[in-house]
């Protein structure tokens, strides 16, 4: 296939960026989207031009490192990660626009690479069970109903890629935060700290500059792991309960 790429190039977070057009000819439909960029990059180097910087690692849809907005949609046309998207999803002769995640709390570092460390800081604010190594009771000491364990898993499957934020017009991180709050609240081990956790993580999210949730659902539509909006509803309940308790003292 022969394609035209419009790619966002930006030297550093301090400099201005712009779209640059590249020709991507002789692309095999069996290539993954990232392999297509690999090929374009190798050709650029041969011409003496610097390669396009982009984040990636596992290329199996699980590490959450890859992050491109393709034709306006985070991770492109399929509900999967960019690394699992293949060129057969595109038409010969098509022009493809490739941009970094666009969100205030995710500043661009170079070209298509953004800084997502705000997510780590949100986890630091309470996205864990406060248990230290050693002294844990036997794994079977606390039975967990299978349905709860399965729902906790569904929430825990979030890969922290940030597509939800990139898709949201408010750059809200509610889907990410609520997935963590839900994962831990659905298990007895995590329920103990759920109120403090919800309050602190939401406060941190606001502090990092993520916007409010206005229930448009675009985060769920963009999520490569199918994290559900139900998680946001669950977190809102926990949060409201915690607020009331806190105000009562």
């Amino acid at each position, binding site marked *: 296939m022969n394609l035209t790429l419009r790619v966002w190039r930006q030297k550093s977070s301090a400099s201005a960026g712009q779209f640059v057009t590249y020709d991507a000819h002789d692309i095999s439909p069996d*290539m993954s989207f990232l392999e297509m960029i690999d090929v374009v990059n190798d050709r650029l180097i041969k011409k003496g031009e*610097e390669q396009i910087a982009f984040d990636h*690692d596992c290329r199996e849809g699980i590490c959450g490192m890859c992050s491109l907005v393709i034709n306006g949609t985070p991770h492109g046309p399929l509900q999967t990660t960019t690394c699992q998207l293949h060129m057969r999803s595109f038409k010969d002769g098509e022009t493809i626009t490739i941009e970094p995640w666009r969100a205030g709390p995710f500043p661009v570092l170079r070209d298509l690479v953004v800084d997502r460390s705000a997510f780590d800081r949100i986890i630091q604010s309470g996205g864990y069970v406060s248990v230290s190594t050693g002294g844990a009771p036997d794994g079977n000491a606390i039975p967990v109903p299978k349905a709860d364990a399965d729902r906790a898993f569904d929430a825990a499957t979030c890969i922290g890629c940030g597509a939800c934020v990139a898709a949201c017009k408010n750059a809200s991180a509610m889907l990410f935060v609520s997935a963590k709050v839900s994962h831990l609240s659905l298990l007895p081990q995590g329920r103990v700290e759920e109120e403090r956790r919800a309050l602190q993580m939401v406060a941190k999210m606001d502090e990092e500059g993520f916007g409010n949730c206005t229930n448009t659902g675009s985060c769920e539509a963009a999520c490569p792991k199918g994290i559900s909006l139900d998680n946001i509803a669950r977190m809102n309940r926990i949060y409201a309960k915690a607020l009331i308790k806190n105000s009562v003292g």
Partner: protein
Amino acid sequence: MSITLDSKIPSGPVPSKWSRYRQDMKLVNPANKRKFNVIVVGTGLAGASAAATLGELGYQVKAFCFQDSPRRAHSIAAQGGINAAKNYRNDGDSIYRLFYDTIKGGDFRAREANVHRLAEVSVNIIDQCVAQGVPFAREYSGLLDNRSFGGAQVSRTFYARGQTGQQLLIGAYQALERQIAAGTVEMHARTELLDIVLVDGHARGIITRNLVTGKIEAYAAAAVVLATGGYGNVFYLSTNAKGCNVTATWRAHKKGALFANPCYTQIHPTCIPVSGDHQSKLTLMSESLRNDGRVWVPKRLEDCGKPASSIAESDRDYYLERKYPSYGNLAPRDIASRAAKQVCDDGRGVGPGGRGVYLDFADSIRRLGENKIRERYGNLFDMYRQITGENAYQQPMRMYPAIHYTMGGLWVDYELMSNVPGLFVIGEANFSDHGANRLGASALMQGLADGYFVLPQTIGGYFAASKNGEVSVDRPEFRQAIEDVETRINKLLSINGKKTVTEFHRELGKLMWDDVGMARTKDSLQQALKRIPELRNEFWENVNVLGGGLELNQALEQAGRVADFLEFGELLAYDAMQREESCGGHFREEYQTEDGEALRNDGEYAFVSAWEHKGVDQFPVLHKEPLVYEEVKMAQRSYK
């Protein structure tokens, strides 16, 4: 420097060595722990669990990883599960049995004392992870579920759907983030280790490059822990993540740490085959598929290009069932891999380039119905379709073996310390527990055993005994190391040759795969030993790395890693050449039984090969650690 290999295995019977060690161990008092700085490089399962636990104990930790967050380490990709000798099934499992299976699975090339300790702490790992909120699979009773895995007759594998590595890593990551919030761990993401610094023969610091700004920095500490993963990407194509590299362990090796058993590499038989020259990595398809899929290729060469459905039953060669009637399609990983290579070498492979064999579900679908197969393997069939565009319910999957895991690594003693005092190595980066072959679901177990339960104890013993004072990064050793790193980077940036880094990496990978891969011979290894230095020389004359050092420069990152692989590959080949036997993942065609099984030579090769670096383009020196079996009797593995 003269080197003596002291494995420091505690005395006494194997099953009581670990408890005896802990009784005798010197302790650091809680108030003093704060005075010790520890550098942990790598925050996958091994590194994240170690950094978190050290922080909890009160040490001052600095942790490093090259990804943008510790949550993205390659451990995240592990699918199948983690072993533990819980015996929740009441099916006869025990610590001893897990110990025995691991020793036997490793083809009697692992250290008994380490493996027994691993089996002992395996049970604590599950408890710890459950307490952290890892959502393991459960039964309707609410209790933990298990599945069985290769190399064991009991069900001892704990799992979280097909994403066990992800869930375990998230657990360790959250424990780590908790310590970061508590101020005991300082995290440096997007930072790559480029050298280790020794002061008076002890590991006292590291030199790093900030991957965003390009700044070269020095960090000093009382000890350095490497948890930087395996070296499978020396083969370019592997199931490892793209960033996996040998740089940290190789730089440590060049500073004096011995590299053990580099030739023990594991090949997984069922991976999605290469689809073209653009291929950047290979994707594993779980071993469990071979429970219901039948492996075959056409009997006749002329049938190989035809669609599978047009080949009559009688014209198909179900070669695993034919060659290994009792194990059939479930023959062990190494056997199944070599058999696939053989039929493809004969020209009977299928798919692009003739490098593939069929894994056919038609019989099972007829027998059990499509729904049952979907229930069992639906996610794998979906992944297969995403990558190949083919529907495996209607046509057989195509599979080919790929490099998957590396058993070799830096040599460590019982305390997980290398021969360089103060340099500890944990997880896939060390050589310790798997001998010549790792069993499924045992790498996650080892990484977490090292990180949560072993290293945090043994490192205290080192601190209690050492008289090391504080060191400052202003010392000449640090300044020299910074200068060396900068010189190398400037060299890479100034070559301005004609080939890209990827071209060199691909070429090295092909050479390694062809000559040092699944089946090795003296000739192929000699060939590799001639070609690797040639390729390395060409790299340093003709590679083209654009851009500058003081910026985010992915070409430069990759160039540094490939440069190290170009040195390391040669050591791997030396090791394979030296080991004139076949064992586990190391198969020398000259040494096989009549049935094509690996033929060990216990009389001459029951030792750990630990290599000492003498300079690039110099012969490395081999040190041998004899393997003494007190508990288990060495025997030939049998799959008949």
